[in-house]
C-alpha cells in the first residue's frame, strides 16, 4: 500500500461526526491490540463487526471491508491475520483525507 493520500468524499451533513468516528477507530485499534494480548477474540470480533456495520455508513467502505476481515479472522482466532489487518487499518487512517461536499 502506498503512503499517498486517499481522498474520500463525504456528505457535508456528516462533517460534525466523521472526525469522532475516525478517532474512535484509532481507539479501537489500541483496544484490539490489547485484546490480542489477553487472547480476547470475542472483543475483537464485536469491534470488527461494528466497524463493518458503521464504516460504509460514514462513507468509508474500506473501513467496512477491513472490519469484516477482522471479524472473520477473530472468529477463527487468527492472531497474525488480525495484526496485519490492524496495521492496514492504521495505514488507512493515517492516509485518508476527507472532502465534504
Amino acid at each position, binding site marked *: 500500500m502506498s503512503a499517498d493520500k486517499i481522498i474520500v468524499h463525504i456528505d457535508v451533513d456528516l462533517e460534525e*461526526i466523521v472526525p469522532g468516528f475516525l478517532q*474512535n477507530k484509532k481507539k479501537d485499534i489500541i483496544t484490539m491490540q*490489547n485484546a490480542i494480548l*489477553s*487472547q*480476547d477474540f470475542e472483543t475483537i470480533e464485536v469491534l470488527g463487526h461494528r466497524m463493518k*456495520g*458503521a464504516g*460504509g455508513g460514514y462513507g468509508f467502505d474500506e473501513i467496512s471491508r477491513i472490519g*469484516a476481515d477482522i471479524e472473520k479472522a477473530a472468529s477463527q482466532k487468527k492472531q497474525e491475520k488480525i495484526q496485519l489487518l490492524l496495521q492496514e487499518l492504521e495505514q488507512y487512517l493515517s492516509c485518508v483525507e476527507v472532502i465534504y461536499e
Partner: protein
Amino acid sequence: MKRSYLDIILFFPILLVGICEIYDLYQKFSYFGIGKLFLVVIVFSFFYKQKKIQKSFQLQNEQFTEKISRLQAIIEQCPSSIVITNIKGNIEYVNPMFSKVTGYSREEVMGKNPRFLKSGETSQEEYRTLWKTIHSGKQWYGQFHNRKKNQELYWELASISPILNAKGHVTHFFAIKQDITELKKIQEDLVNAKQTADLANKAKSIFLANMSHEIRTPMNSIIGMADLLWETPLNQDQKQYVQIFRNAGENLLNLINDILDLSKIEAGHCHLETIEFDLAQMIEQISQVMALKAQKKGLELLFHIANDTPVKLLGDPLRLRQILINLIGNAIKFTEKGKILVRICPNPQSTMPGNLLFSVSDTGIGISKDKQNRIFENFMQADSFVGRRYGGTGLGLSISKKIVELMKGRIWVESEENHGSVFSFTAQFGISEMASIQAASQKLPVIANIGLSEEGGRKILLVEDSPDNQVLMRAYFKNLPYILDIAENGQVALERFRNSSYDLILMDIQMPVMDGHTATKEIRKYEAEKNLPQTPVIALTAYALREEMEKCMEYGCNAHLSKPIKKAELIATIEKYLKKTKESS
C-alpha cells in the same frame, strides 16, 4: 610488799587494739612516774595511729591503681579504635587498635586534630552535623570514608560522645570506631549481585517475550493448516488425528501466550491503561462468556455487585477482565457440582474511593493449607496430580497476581481441601468524573433519548449496540421530523417498547444480551397478547446473505436493510413503512 598496776586500753578507731599494762613489784607509782608513763603511751599510740592510717591509704591506693590499670587494659586492648580529644578536638589519647588500623603511631598523632584522616570522600555536611551534635552534648553515630597513613581508603563506623565534668560542661570527646571496610565490600558485592541477577532475569523475560513471539508465527501457520485440513473430506481415523492435532496446537498456543504475557509483565513492558469503563457492563459481558462454560458442567454462576459499589470507573478494563476470567475459569475447572459466586464491593479495609474488593468462591476441590502460598508462583499448581488431571500452564494465577500488584492491590486465597476455595483480590480504580456513586443493582437500562422534542413528530426506536452507528443515525435524523429513541440492545428495546409506543423500529440483529431476532419475536408476541397493531420493524444487518434476510422476515421483521446503510435508502424505507401504517390506520 607494795605493788602498783596501771592498765591502759587502746582503741583504733573504735576497735580494741590492745592493752598496755605497767606494773611495779616493789613500790607504788609516783604521780610523776604515772605522768611519764602516760606520755610514753600517748607517743606510742600516736605512732601506732599514724602507721595504721598509712597502711589503709596504701591499700586504697593499691585498689585504685588496680582499677585504673584494668580500665586502661580494656581500652588498650579494645578491638575497636578509641580516640579521646580535648574540647578543641586535639588528640589526647589513642589506643593501639587505632594505630593498627590507621598506621599512625600514638606519638605521631598526639595533640593533632583527627582531620588528617580525611579522604575527602565524606561530605562537609556530614562533618558539620557531627560537630553540631556533639557540641550540644549529644552522641553522634555515623560512617567515615577515611584514608590510612599508607594512603589506602577505609570505611569506619563511629560513635562520638562528649565527656562531661561534674558541672555538666563538655571537657573531652570520646570516639569509638570500628573498621567496616570488609562489611562494606560484602554489602556492595551483594548489591551488585542483586543487580546482575535482576538484569539476567530481565534479559530472560525479554528473551522469552521475543521467543514466544517468534514461536507464535509458525504455530499460527500450523494451526491454520490443521483447521483447513479439518474442513477437507476425512475418514474417521483421520478426523480423530486432526482433532488431536488441533487441540494440541491450541493448548500450545495458549501456553505460549501465557508465557508471553508473563514475560511482558516481568520485563516491565506491561503498562496499565487508564480509561473510563462501566464495571456493571463489563461484569455482564463476562457473565455471558462464563455462564456457558458453567452451564456445560451443570454449575450455577452468580454475580453480586454491592449497592454502594461505584461502577463508572477509570482503569484498565481489559486487564481486570483477564483476572476475573482467570479466577472464574479456575473455579469452573476445579468444581464438579455446586455454584460459583462472584462478589464485588468497596474494599472494607480501605477508605480510598474506588478501592474495590473482588471475590470468587466455589464449591470445588479446594487447596490444602501448605500449598496455598505456592500457587501464585510461576508454573506452580497445587500439585502435579492437579496438573495432570486438569491441565493448564500454572501461569494464570501468577499473571493475575502481577496484574493485581500493578493495580495497587493484593490477591489471596482462603480454602479448605474438599470444601471449596475463595479467591479474593483488591484493586484501586479512579472514579469517572461523570459518575456519582450509583446503586448498581438498581441501575436502569441506559436509554438515550435523542431527537426533536417537537410535538407530533413520528417516534422511531433505534435498537443498536455500536456507538458509532448510534452517532451516525443521529446525524441522519438531525434535520428530519422524527423523534429518535435509542436502545442499546434487544432487552432494553423490549422494555422501552412495553412502556411507550413507537411508529417504527430500526432493529440491529447481532447484539449482546438479546439479539434482534429474539427482540422482534418478543415484540410480536407482546403485540398479539395486547391485541395491538403490528409496528413496522426494519432489520439492519451486516449480513448480505439471502438466508439471513429470510430469517429476519421469519422472526417478524417487515423489511431488511444491509449495512452499511445509506441515508437516502434508509429515509425512503422509513417513509414507505410509515406511510403504510398511516394508510392502514
